[in-house]
């Protein structure tokens, strides 16, 4: 015992399986356990969807997806080939892009400018306006459909038919872009303003003395330092718009020339559930883009981007 206590490693061995050791181990692994648990909870349904998409309709209708593993001979790609041939997938894909890209760029850009003003410029009622904006986060967007649509249609005559009739490409989506921008702005501003506010004030004062104007400070100092915040905001907003069905359906309707992928997918199945087998494969098609967006922006989540700026 005395020998064991002399060497630190031996002392650890001696304490193994004591209640204290157990608590330490538990604490160390509890984070891992939680993360793994969450991952499993998220991955299993996705896996189920994937497995279902490679099973024939008859099998899908009669047994659960997990039975596939005991009888893998039912494998088929017909769901994928059907969805590609039956639906207007290519057009819908294109429409989704045409909707999602401007509907992401608009609120993020405007939000960044506004957030800079809210965090680093002085103007009357700044805090009151900011609070009102944060309050908008709590407004359910369904409430806005009727007043905005009324305004679009009655005052501006912006119906999808009217806008399509002008022949200008992209114009039918303008109402939707503006709507998405409006819905996204409160969160954009809130998130970015909080991030900008945390930048060290010395940087701004130093830039001021160096002779940089407001725009220069914004583009050459604030923007480069805010890449992680902007990247996460872009992901949020893009995914929200990409996955949105309701807002798109309300503002542009279901015409195949303008409707996004989500509307197209919803139309695959009828109210009796026919064609629901196609949904599984179509869902995988629609997942490709969000995955690409996420993976390509992920590298901008740099920790410690401010390192070396202030303090030794």
């Amino acid at each position, binding site marked *: 015992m005395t020998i064991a206590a002399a060497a630190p490693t031996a002392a650890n061995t001696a304490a193994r399986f004591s209640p204290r050791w157990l608590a330490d181990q538990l604490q160390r692994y509890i984070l891992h356990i939680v993360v793994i648990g969450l991952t499993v909870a998220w991955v299993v349904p996705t896996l189920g969807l994937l497995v279902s998409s490679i099973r024939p309709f008859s099998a899908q209708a009669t047994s659960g997806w997990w039975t596939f593993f005991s009888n893998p001979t039912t494998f088929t790609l017909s769901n994928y080939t059907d969805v590609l041939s039956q639906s207007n997938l290519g057009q819908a894909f294109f429409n989704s892009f045409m909707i999602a890209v401007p509907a992401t760029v608009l609120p993020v850009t405007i939000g960044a400018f506004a957030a800079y003003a809210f965090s680093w410029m002085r103007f009357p009622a700044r805090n009151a306006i900011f609070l009102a904006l944060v309050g908008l986060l709590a407004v359910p967007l369904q409430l806005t459909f009727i007043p905005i649509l009324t305004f679009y249609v009655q005052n501006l005559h912006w119906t999808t038919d009217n806008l399509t009739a002008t022949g200008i490409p992209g114009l039918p989506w303008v109402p939707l872009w503006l709507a998405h921008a409006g819905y996204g702005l409160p969160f954009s501003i809130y998130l970015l303003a909080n991030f900008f506010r945390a930048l060290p004030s010395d940087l701004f004062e130093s830039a001021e*003395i*160096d002779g940089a104007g407001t725009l*220069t400070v914004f583009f050459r100092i604030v923007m*480069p330092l805010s890449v992680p915040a902007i990247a996460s905001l872009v992901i949020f907003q893009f995914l929200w718009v990409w996955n949105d069905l309701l807002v798109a359906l309300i503002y542009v309707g279901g015409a195949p020339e303008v409707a996004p992928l989500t509307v197209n997918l919803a139309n695959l199945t009828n109210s009796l559930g026919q064609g629901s087998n196609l949904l599984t494969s179509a869902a995988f098609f629609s997942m490709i883009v969000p995955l690409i967006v996420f993976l390509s922006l992920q590298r901008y989540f740099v920790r410690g981007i401010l390192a070396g*700026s*202030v303090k030794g």
Partner: protein
Amino acid sequence: MASVTYDHVVKRYTADVTVVKDFNVEIKDKEFMVLVGPSGCGKSTALRMLAGLESITEGQIRIGDRVVNNVAAKDRDIAMVFQSYALYPHMSVYDNMAFPLQMQHMPKVDIDKRVKNASRILGLDNFLKRKPRALSGGQRQRVALGRAIVRSPKVFLLDEPLSNLDAKLRGQTRIELQKLHRDLETTFIYVTHDQVEAMTMGDRIAIMNAGILQQVGSPGDIYDHPANLFVAGFIGSPTMNFVPVTTSDSSAKASGFEVKLPKSVPAGKGTLGFRPETVTDRISDQSGTLQMKVDVVERLGSDQFLYGQVGSDSVTARVDPKMKVEPGDSVRLGLDTRTLHLFDAETELALI
């Protein structure tokens, strides 16, 4: 190259929060002026008003002959080094230094020349491509200096530039800064709370307390002739001994000793001040004597400080390092009466 004048400058945030009160200083061309004082005394605010980062409530600040109250920071022809360095973390060392010149739309060739020159002076040649995060504290500090140098400003403002460095580097940088001041031949205004920095670097020192300028003078002048009790206590380490005394004509009586004053003062109460180095183990004809009960002995190698009681007053003495003293001993020490200070009990102003 220019002088700087603070003319009755006041900084008030609200009606009853005044951080700088009637501040008057004239800083000569090419002078190294140190603003020193405890934290919250208004020294940084005074500097920031000169930099153009704070508005001036009352009075005038002039750079050369030009009143700069309403001149934008970038047009004041000053450069500032921040305590935090405030480097742009996403730019290389080169770009950090080039940034102020790019803002002036200077041709690329000239920018390159100036940045290279500054990096040579500061020994940053090998780090030009690095980002600030890949630099040590001392190197970052030099980049911040470089960013100021490239502009060749009329006035350099330094806001506690050494306080984020470790003690050894601080000592080195102190010397480098003095060299730099000599080489650049520019007005330097340096804010610090560290009286050692003030004493060692300043041509002149301005001491502030609670928003009020206490005294301006050369380090030696301030050390030898502090204008009031605050200055006497702030400058010098260990701090000056302060002992309440009753004066009558030309002698002062404390609880544990009595000394002859170098000149006669009106009878009354006052505070006698004398620096630790005037209390020694050498007793001569001119010196008074005191009997000290030693509480703490500090041996620094080159010096030996004794902390103890004389009568009912605490006194610090600096004695020969070879003197053998232990805590609890009672020793007889000499007090050199030639450099005594006497402060008025009420106004705290120096009488001697």
